[in-house]
């Protein structure tokens, strides 16, 4: 057993740091280190920058334009990027669709779509959930009916993240209404500019239009844009979920938030002393910092041992639950550092978020918006209740 990074791993980390020092735009970095969310333009620009450096998708195999990095180095990359204040890379193309296309897509699809994900030319969104199909995804109703060389799609998707900016959607549709729910689903790639699609952004708690309702009315999708076999979509969707665990814990983002918490708590005082000097508060920060270390080591252990596991494990669910809880808890403490100053509020502009002109500490509105926004972490991507069901099921039934 050796829990240290290898010399080569550390070299990689240093290379990433040098790159970030040189290439991460100062305005983006400033925003993210101040606890504000990344704007849409931050995300686009960063993907272009990474791509230009050959790092558009470090996790992908080399034959598809990636670096074929080990899991541990992927972890280091995400940790360094996040703590330096880099925006997230959009997960929909890179982490979700990409691996599915590599495994199940045909060469035409791979050659057309993968390079455009890498470069950031295509913004992808995920069209799974529907008003009536959230946790119970297999009950989805959006239907696709074959008509010559096209599917004709009708239905409605819900809670679609940032789909208002998307060029493409990967989408689960029902192609066989008579089969068992999981058997009659297909996996389609849909051009968001197709006639018959309407998109309505809706605001989250913090006022940001981060999700969308999307309607399909006789939208024609070429059969060539189906991934894999008809009615096998559920298999691909499950494959996709199982391949998105390296970063599911969100260690890097949590580390950035923890550093922010310590900064803010050292600056803001209540009752005449800095919050970080308040023994009660300090103990709570310490508790969270410890939990975060446990999360990081657990994450590293699980991803290191992943390849040697033969049976399915509840690892991803454990990481998702604790990762979301820790991020949410940090956002709560951040809010508490400023007491009543958390209440003046203004929505943040989506393109390039900036602290609104409100009285009080500059961080205040960002902290409140952040607390509100992060309530989503325990709901999306399989709610924490569903993750607990999965863990219990694996413990008891296998």
């Amino acid at each position, binding site marked *: 057993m050796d829990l240290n990074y290898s010399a080569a791993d550390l070299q990689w980390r240093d290379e990433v740091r040098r790159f970030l020092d040189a290439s991460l735009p100062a305005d983006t970095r400033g925003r993210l280190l101040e606890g504000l969310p990344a704007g849409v333009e931050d995300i686009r620009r960063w993907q272009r920058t990474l791509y230009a450096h050959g790092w558009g998708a470090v996790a992908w195999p080399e034959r598809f334009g990636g670096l074929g990095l080990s899991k541990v180095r992927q972890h280091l990359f995400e940790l360094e990027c996040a703590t330096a204040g880099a925006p997230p890379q959009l997960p929909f193309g890179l982490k979700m669709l990409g691996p599915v296309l590599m495994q199940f897509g045909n060469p035409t699809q791979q050659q057309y779509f993968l390079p455009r994900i890498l470069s950031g030319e295509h913004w992808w969104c995920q069209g799974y959930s529907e008003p009536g199909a959230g946790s119970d995804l297999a009950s989805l109703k959006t239907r696709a009916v074959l008509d010559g060389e096209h599917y004709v799609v009708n239905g409605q998707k819900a809670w679609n993240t940032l789909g208002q900016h998307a060029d493409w959607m990967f989408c689960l549709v029902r192609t066989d209404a008579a089969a068992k729910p999981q058997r009659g689903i297909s996996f389609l790639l849909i051009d968001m500019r197709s006639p018959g699609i309407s998109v309505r952004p809706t605001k989250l708690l913090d006022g940001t239009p981060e999700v969308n309702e999307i309607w399909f009315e006789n939208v024609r999708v070429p059969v060539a844009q189906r991934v894999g076999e008809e009615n096998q979509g559920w298999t691909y969707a499950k494959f996709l979920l199982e391949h998105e665990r390296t970063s599911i814990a969100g260690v890097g983002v949590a580390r950035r938030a923890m550093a922010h918490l310590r900064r803010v708590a050292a600056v803001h005082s209540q009752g005449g002393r800095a919050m970080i000097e308040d023994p009660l508060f300090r103990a709570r920060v310490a508790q969270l910092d410890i939990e975060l270390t446990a999360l990081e080591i657990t994450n590293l252990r699980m991803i290191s041992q992943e390849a040697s596991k033969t049976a399915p494990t509840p690892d991803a669910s454990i990481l998702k639950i604790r990762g979301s809880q820790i991020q949410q808890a940090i956002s709560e403490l951040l809010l508490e550092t400023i007491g009543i100053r958390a209440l003046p509020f203004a929505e943040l502009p989506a393109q390039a978020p900036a602290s609104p002109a409100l009285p*009080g500490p500059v961080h205040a509105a960002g902290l409140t918006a952040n607390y509100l926004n992060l309530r989503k972490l325990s709901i999306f991507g399989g709610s924490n209740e569903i993750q607990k069901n999965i863990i219990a099921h694996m413990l008891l039934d296998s």
Partner: protein
Amino acid sequence: MDFSFSDEQGMLMDAARRLVTDQYGRDGARQRAATADGYSRATWSEFARLGLLALNVPEEHGGLDAGPIGTLAVCFVLGEALVVEPFLSSAVLATLAIARLGSPEQRLQWLPRLAAGEAIAVLAHEEGDGGPVATAVRTVAVADGGEWVLDGCKSVVYHAPAADLLLVTARIDAPTGAQTALFAVPPDAAGVALQPYVTVDGQRAADISLHQLRLPSSARMGAEVGADLQAVLDQGLAALCAETLGALERLMRMTLDYTRERVQFGVPIARFQALQHRMAEMATHLEFARSMTYLAASQCVAGEPAGRAAALSAAKVIVGQAARFVGQQAVQLHGGMGVADEYGVSHYFKRLLAAECRFGATAWHLTRYAGTL
């Protein structure tokens, strides 16, 4: 021992219910938040017509003098509907302050107008760094040739943008030690600057800066006001607990209803035991919050000052923790609907968040309580 409301208090509750039913549709709070004033003047007149603005006006001025329990009863109902009119700010805090501390002329000048809904007053006391303590004031007042000169800042004063009268606390450094004093200040006086904004729960508030504000000696209300002002602040805290309890109760009901209706995996999600247990925990928080809200109001009726401070802090801790737990779990159990701003849950969540932070946040009260052990 008796935990029930009197007939009179029950009637007040009915009046508040009627008002809320007539004036607040499903979306009343949100519609008002979108207007320039942030509240409805028409509804405010209705409050007056039903006598609710006279709740804390003494009988000799034609008021109801309903006391902390009557206030609890009304605020509970207002909290259920997330009422945004300045009831707590003007009809509880400021009205009580004038009734207790105003000179006969000030009482005659303001109480009838406040009760009639013709004027709104707010108490500007807290300075953003602690809790609702009468002596915690950094704003200073200095005597200067028969006038007072005030300098300082007040933070997050709810409903200040709507106010016709500000009741501003300041410290006077007398040879015998510092005293807290209260001043009646017209919001448009030279030297007063309001920076207004919307709060996270969709209400209106302002930071107020006072710079070389000159006031006639008649602007001072009472003399050394510490004890009376503390009693007013305590009643405000108790009223906030009552409002919060109302919001908690409604949100609990919304969650029960939603989980009975929402179907996933072929059954209402209320059938899942994990969610049943969560709702049982929410209900437990709610019942503790109810008890402590009653305790807070009762202490305002009868408690002696030291014991009252501890009891109010205990109440705020329990109510604040209930606000956080019930708020977060209601969102969680609504899934995507919980985080979507269009649906009601998010409004309750944000109101509960504001309640946690106002009148001293949970951690502040925990620390104060610890100091009393």
